[in-house]
């Protein structure tokens, strides 16, 4: 039998050059880990873009971390200053984790 528990998955869509900074914020919030997914293309209010830029300056990445509700709240709080200034997108999903002690 596996023990399971509710956790929060916080996902952050951000510009590639910002990822390092976001990961620092994530780490400060006491989470046990984080993962970055590559993003191929997208479009929003201003421009459509795709990752064909030579420098990756307009490329994005998706950072996510699965953590307890408390830590998730702290993380969202800590990300607030970057939210408008750097145009992040942040959303939270309920997930059921196996081995809750790992998150």
């Amino acid at each position: 039998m596996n023990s399971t528990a509710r956790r929060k998955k916080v996902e952050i869509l951000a510009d590639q050059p910002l990822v390092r900074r976001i990961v620092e914020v994530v780490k400060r919030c006491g989470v046990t880990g984080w993962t970055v997914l590559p993003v191929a293309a997208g479009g929003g209010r201003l421009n459509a873009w795709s990752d064909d830029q030579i420098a990756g300056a307009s490329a994005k990445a998706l950072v996510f971390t699965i953590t307890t509700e408390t830590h998730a709240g702290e993380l969202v709080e800590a990300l607030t200053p970057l939210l408008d200034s750097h145009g992040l997108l942040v959303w939270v999903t309920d997930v059921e984790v196996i081995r809750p002690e790992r998150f």
Partner: protein
Amino acid sequence: MDVLLSPVILFFVLGALAAAARSDLAIPEPIAKGMALYLMAAIGLKGGVQVAEGGFSATMAAAAAAGLALSCLIPLAAFALLRGIGRLGRIDAAAVAAHYGSVSVVTFVAGSEMLKAAGMAPAGFMVAVLALMETPAIIAGLVLAKGAGSSDAEERGELLRETLLNGTVVLLLGSFAIGLVVGKEGFAPIAPVFDGGFRGILCLFLLDMGLIAIRRLRETRSLTLRLAGLGILMPVMNGTVGTVVGHLIGLDAGSAAALGILAASASYIAVPAAMRLALPQADAGLSLAMSLAVTFPFNIALGIPAVSLLARWLAS
């Protein structure tokens, strides 16, 4: 004129036409990035080897000083134009200004090839000038934006570090230094890759640039006619100033033209990444559209030949 029918330029045109016709032709992004790194390593090495042959000189120091000054001062003029004529807000104007103060490696490379074909190859040390000109404009741009954004002292220090240690700068200066150390003899065994392969790779890279430039042009909504006009006016002005300055400090015609090309070119690699961090409120799409989709093609097609003519005329 003949130079416009070189394979390098024709591949750029092919890319532009394919993108304009909405073909799905695309170069995988890691390949494009790999080619960019290759080109930087190659021009760094070749510049270093040339300086190792020719030795240092006072002209070199003068060229370096001129390059630094241009990179610091061009943003001021550009900022005024972008606010006045371009009707941009302070932050956007500062961001775009930083792009125009900095330089485009590929424009320099394409320009060097054209100058070489015209028998007026620029001096090897111009590669070092190129590397020096990349970053001061970023700082000038930030000063113009007057510390907008949430940047405190610590963050500014971090940004400065990141800017100075930008991958482009490190690779250019590092390869230049390696070229200096190994000299012509040490370069020989790696010449098939870094010299023999150079123009062919440049063709494929410019194919990609043509595709990207036109695609970006189409995707951008904030590029007004006024701004597009400035995207041509600024390289004309900066190119003229750069070439004349180069002539006045005693550079040969080819090197003066190269300084003009550097001044006329606008960054689309190092600066956009830095601005994303330092001025995230600025419209990144606009800067890229101006530098990549207006100024870059203009320089390739008209700017470089014009600057070459000017340099030759000044020298004669």
